C-alpha cells in the first residue's frame, strides 16, 4: 500500500485530553482507572471514565445529536487544536473530497437505556427527549462529526465491536487509494454504557481489580471510554522525519466463536500477516507491537501465541490498557495514536498493573516504560464476532 500521512491526531480518554497527557501517562506509568460498582449487579470493577461529560451538552445547533458518545466526540475533536487544524485541511481539499470513517460499538445507546429506565419508573411511552437518529443510531457518531465539521464526502460508521476503529483506518485508506476522496477523518469513539458494563460482567470478563494485561494472574478487563481521531491524507513530497505514516492494514475473521477468540489466535495471526504484506514489510521490520491485550485469560493467551508464532521474542510488545482501560470500539484508533506517540517519543510503553508475566506466553513483553529508537509499530485490535485488524505505522524518516 502507498503510505498515507497521519497529518494530525489526538485523543481524549481517562488519562486526559490530548497527546501530552497521554504521553505523560505512558512515560510515567500512571493509570486513569478507578473503582466502580455496577449498580444493579453489585459487581465491583474498575473503569476508565472521561470526566465532565455530564456537564457539557452539545450546543443548540447540534442539540439533536446530544448524547454521551457525541459529547465525547466533541471533547476529542477539541483536544490539541485538532478541530481547527482539520477545518483548514477540509477547506484545502474541499468538503466533498474528505471522508468520515469512524468506529463505535455502542454509539449513543446510553440515552435509550436511560429512557427505558425512566419509562420503567414512570410508565407510559419513552420520554419525548429521546432522539433515536441523533444518539442511539449506530451512524449517529459519523453523522454528528460530519455535520459539525461541514464535511460533505462519503461517510459511514464501522461497527465490528473492539476492532471497529482500527478497521476504520483500513477502510478510509481504501477510499483514498480508490480515488473517491483525498483525505479522511478517521478514528473511533465509544463511551460507557450499561449494555457493555453489564454485558461483559455477564460473561465474567470484568476484572475486580485494575486490568493486568499478560499477567499470570490476569482476571479480566477494565472498561474505558475514549475518543481518538486522525486526519489521513496523501503525504506531501517532503515530510519531517518525525511524521507518522500509515503503512499497512490487515483484516481477518476468526470463524470460530461469537465471544471467544480462536485458541491459537489463528485469525489474529492472519490479520498481522495481512498488515505486514500490505506494508511490504517483514517481521524484522517491526520495532514495537501495541497488543490488544485486554487482560482476559483467553484473549491474551490467543493473541500472545499468535504473536509468538509470528515474531518469536524478537519484538518488544505491550498492552497499554492498564493506562486507558479497554475502550472497545475506540481502542483501535486510541492505540494507533499511542503507537504514534511511541514512535515520535522513542518510547516503549510499559504495562501498568502487570506484575508477574504469564510464563506460558513466550514474547518480549515490556513491563516498565523505557526509551528505545523505534521506526515502525504494529497495533492489534480484535473484537467479538471474531473480527480482527492489525495496523502498521512508521516514522517518515
Amino acid at each position, binding site marked *: 500500500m502507498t503510505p498515507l500521512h497521519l497529518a494530525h491526531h489526538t485523543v481524549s480518554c481517562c488519562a486526559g485530553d490530548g497527546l501530552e497527557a497521554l504521553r505523560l501517562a505512558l512515560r510515567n506509568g500512571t493509570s486513569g482507572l478507578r473503582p466502580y460498582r455496577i449498580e444493579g*449487579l453489585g459487581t465491583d470493577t474498575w473503569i476508565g471514565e472521561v470526566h465532565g461529560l455530564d456537564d457539557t451538552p452539545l450546543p443548540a445547533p447540534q442539540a439533536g445529536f446530544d448524547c454521551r458518545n457525541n459529547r465525547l466526540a466533541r471533547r476529542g475533536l477539541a483536544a490539541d487544536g485538532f478541530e481547527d487544524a482539520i477545518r483548514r485541511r477540509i477547506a484545502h481539499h474541499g468538503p466533498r473530497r474528505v471522508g468520515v470513517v469512524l468506529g463505535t460499538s455502542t454509539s449513543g445507546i446510553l440515552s435509550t*437505556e436511560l429512557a427505558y429506565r425512566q419509562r420503567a419508573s414512570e410508565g407510559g411511552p419513552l420520554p419525548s427527549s429521546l432522539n433515536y437518529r441523533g444518539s442511539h*443510531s449506530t451512524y449517529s457518531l459519523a453523522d454528528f462529526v460530519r455535520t459539525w465539521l461541514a464535511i460533505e464526502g462519503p461517510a*459511514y460508521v464501522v461497527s465490528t465491536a473492539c476492532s471497529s476503529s482500527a478497521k476504520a483506518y483500513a477502510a478510509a485508506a*481504501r477510499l483514498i487509494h480508490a480515488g473517491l476522496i483525498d483525505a479522511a477523518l478517521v478514528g473511533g469513539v465509544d463511551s460507557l454504557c450499561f449494555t457493555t458494563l453489564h454485558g461483559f460482567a455477564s460473561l465474567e470478563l470484568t476484572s475486580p481489580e485494575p486490568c493486568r494485561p499478560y499477567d499470570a494472574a490476569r482476571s479480566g478487563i477494565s472498561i474505558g471510554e475514549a475518543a481518538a481521531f486522525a486526519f489521513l491524507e496523501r503525504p506531501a513530497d517532503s515530510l519531517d522525519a518525525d511524521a507518522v505514516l500509515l503503512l499497512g492494514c490487515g483484516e481477518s*475473521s476468526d470463524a470460530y466463536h461469537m465471544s471467544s477468540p480462536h485458541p491459537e489466535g489463528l485469525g489474529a495471526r492472519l490479520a498481522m500477516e495481512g498488515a505486514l504484506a500490505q506494508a511490504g514489510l517483514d517481521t524484522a521490520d517491526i520495532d514495537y507491537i501495541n497488543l490488544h491485550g485486554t487482560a482476559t485469560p483467553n484473549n491474551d493467551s490467543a493473541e500472545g501465541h499468535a504473536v509468538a508464532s509470528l515474531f518469536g521474542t524478537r519484538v518488544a510488545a505491550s498492552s497499554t490498557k492498564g493506562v486507558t482501560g479497554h475502550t472497545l470500539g475506540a481502542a483501535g484508533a486510541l492505540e494507533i495514536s499511542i503507537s504514534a506517540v511511541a514512535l515520535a517519543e522513542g518510547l516503549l510503553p510499559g504495562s501498568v498493573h502487570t506484575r508477574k508475566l504469564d510464563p506460558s506466553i513466550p514474547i518480549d513483553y515490556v513491563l516498565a516504560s523505557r526509551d528505545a529508537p523505534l521506526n515502525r509499530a504494529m497495533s492489534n485490535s480484535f473484537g467479538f*464476532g471474531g473480527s480482527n485488524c492489525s495496523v502498521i505505522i512508521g516514522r517518515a524518516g
Partner: protein
Amino acid sequence: MSAPVSLSAWIEGVGLIAPGLPDWAHGAAVLAGRDAHLLAPSVLPAPMVLPPNERRRASRVVRVALASGLAALEQAGMAPSGVAAVFAASTADGHNCHALCETLASSDQRVSPTRFHNSLHNTPAGYWSIATGAMAASQSLCASDASFAAGLIETLVQIHATNAPCVLIAYDAEYPEPLASLRPIPDAAGISLALGPRPSPRSLARLDIRLGDGAATRLGTPSLETLRTAIPALRGLPLLEALASARGGELNLEYLAPLSLHLTLSPC
C-alpha cells in the same frame, strides 16, 4: 476539475428477501413488471448452515443476512468460505436491543451473555463467518438510511483494492415498540450482491459507480416505492429493478446529502 472517479465490478449473483419479494427469481418478475406485487410479510428461512442450537435461536437480522447473502453467492457459483463480505445495515437486532434495555431497566439487571453478543452490529457477520468458515476480512458498517449505498461503495472499493470478489449483504429488520415509534421499519428485508472484478460466463451486468448529486431514482410501482423508502436496505431496489428488466442504464441511489450514488448498469 478532474472527472469524478468511477469504480466498476460485475454482478455475478443476487439475493433478495423483501415483503412480497420472497427471492430474486420471483422478485425479478415483479420488479420487471411481469408479475404483480402482492404485499406479504418477508419470509426468513432458518439458516441451515448454522448448528441446530444456533439455528433455532437465530434472530431475524441473522436470518435475512445469511439467507440473502448465501443466495447471491450460490447464483454466482462462489464458495462463501473464500469471499470477503461487506455487511451494511442501519442497526443491529432491534428485538434483542429492546429486551436488553428492558432488562437493564428492571429490578434484576442480569443480562444473558447471548443477548450481549447478539447486541452487536456485527453479529450477523460473526455468524456468517462461523457458518461458512470464511476467515477473509468482513466489514460491518452503518450509514443510517444511506447504508445500502455506503455498503455498495465499500464493496466496490474492496474489489478495487484486492482484485478479488466481494459480496455485499445489505439488510435491516424492525424494532418492536416502543422503539418502533421512534424508528419505524415495517419488516425485515435484505439485498445481497455477489460482485467480481472481471466478467465471467455468469455475469449478469457490469456495474459502474461514482459519487454524484442527482435525485434518487424512484420506483414506478407505488407499493415498491413505499418499501424503498421504508426499509433502508431496500434503497437498493432501483438497481435490482434495472437489473431485472435487463434494460440497464443510469440511476441514482440515495446516499448522504449532498451526495447520491450514480450507477451505470450494462447488462451482459
